[in-house]
């Protein structure tokens, strides 16, 4: 389990994270959402021990990530948004560097590469941006770590690869692994990420499962205008309206509409989901 307590971080005079507190449970695929510059990447790099909290603390199964103990690092993987085009064949990279993660599985690496229709014999610096990204995703998942942090993993992936990514993430992570995926491409990951975390400038607006969200908020897709809707958005097929769920019916959560609703009604939503 990850416990973040009153975490703060600034770049010089520019505060990015302030008073961030939340708990992340194991075996879940968290979606980390937020506008540009709210500190998603900063949070991920703090979680994996690349940065030192300036205030507050992070506890991951009793470890402080910034101590960078080998036994902690061997159990986590951070996949950055920008990945290196190494002058090596993908298979050689995996063979040489997989050793740093005790549960790295070469067979799994090759299997995921196959799912992505990627050639492991190709040199990584000769790959296209998307192919390179897919190689790194395959490597990250093949490390079989307890924690996987991914920053915008679907950036640069072509249309078929996005479905392959969803498949890889559900099939090749173990039941007790925790994934934290930051993304703007919510449509790519709509049915994959659950719980959903919405980060705002210096605050956590929401950290809730899809079940909790659909219990508390109702997403209406009919064409009838509803008085008192928290948010409404026109779409070619009608409109999406978000209301407070007064009944017991659960509707399909539209993450984009959710995001906009949360931003329009920060305090209200925070109060609704306060535990």
């Amino acid at each position, binding site marked *: 389990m990850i416990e973040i307590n009153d975490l703060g971080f600034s770049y010089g005079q520019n505060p990015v994270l302030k008073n961030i507190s939340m708990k992340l449970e194991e075996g879940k695929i968290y979606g980390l959402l937020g506008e540009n510059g709210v500190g998603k990447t900063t949070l991920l790099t703090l979680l994996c021990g690349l940065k030192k909290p300036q205030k507050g603390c992070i506890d991951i199964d009793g470890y402080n990530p910034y101590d960078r103990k080998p036994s902690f690092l061997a159990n986590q993987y951070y996949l950055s948004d920008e990945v290196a085009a190494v002058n090596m064949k993908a298979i050689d990279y995996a063979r040489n560097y997989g050793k740093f993660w005790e549960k790295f599985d070469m067979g799994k690496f090759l299997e995921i590469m196959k799912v992505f229709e990627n050639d492991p014999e190709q040199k990584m610096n000769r790959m296209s941006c998307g192919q390179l990204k897919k190689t790194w995703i395959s490597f990250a998942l093949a490390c079989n770590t307890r924690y996987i942090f991914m920053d915008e993993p679907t950036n640069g992936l072509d249309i078929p690869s996005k479905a392959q990514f969803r498949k890889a993430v*559900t099939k090749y992570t173990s039941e007790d692994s925790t994934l934290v995926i930051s993304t703007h491409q919510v449509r790519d990951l709509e049915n994959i990420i659950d719980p959903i975390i919405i980060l705002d400038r210096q605050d956590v607006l929401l950290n809730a499962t899809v079940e909790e969200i659909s219990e508390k908020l109702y997403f209406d897709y009919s064409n009838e205008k509803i008085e008192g809707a928290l948010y409404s958005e026109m779409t070619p097929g009608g409109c999406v309206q978000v209301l407070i769920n007064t009944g017991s019916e*659960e509707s399909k959560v539209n993450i984009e509409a959710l995001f906009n609703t949360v931003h329009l009604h920060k305090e209200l939503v925070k109060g609704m989901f306060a535990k």
Partner: protein
Amino acid sequence: MDFNSNKSIYLQICDSICEKIMSGELGPDSRIPSVRDYGAEIGVNPNTVMRSYEKLTNDGIIYNKRGIGYFISPDAKDIVLQRSRKEFLEEEVPRIIKKMKLLGLVPSEIFS
């Protein structure tokens, strides 16, 4: 799978399994994929699929053999058929009636 309906995803997964039971594609005691395999197949979070399986189990449509997997109940088809008829009468029929009024159609023009 195409998730176009406005129902929550876990209910849509239930519906899709029920449809396969009604069509006979999934017969009594046939095995359905594990939560993780099914999630991977349709690109959905395994926890969501788990919720669907829990609901179907509570409804008596599937059953769990510990350590082996999930199977279709012997009387699943009857349960699904009854439920679907009820849903059709309570939810779809009123919608059809509303649409017919809107279009100025009377039953005799449609049902002969």
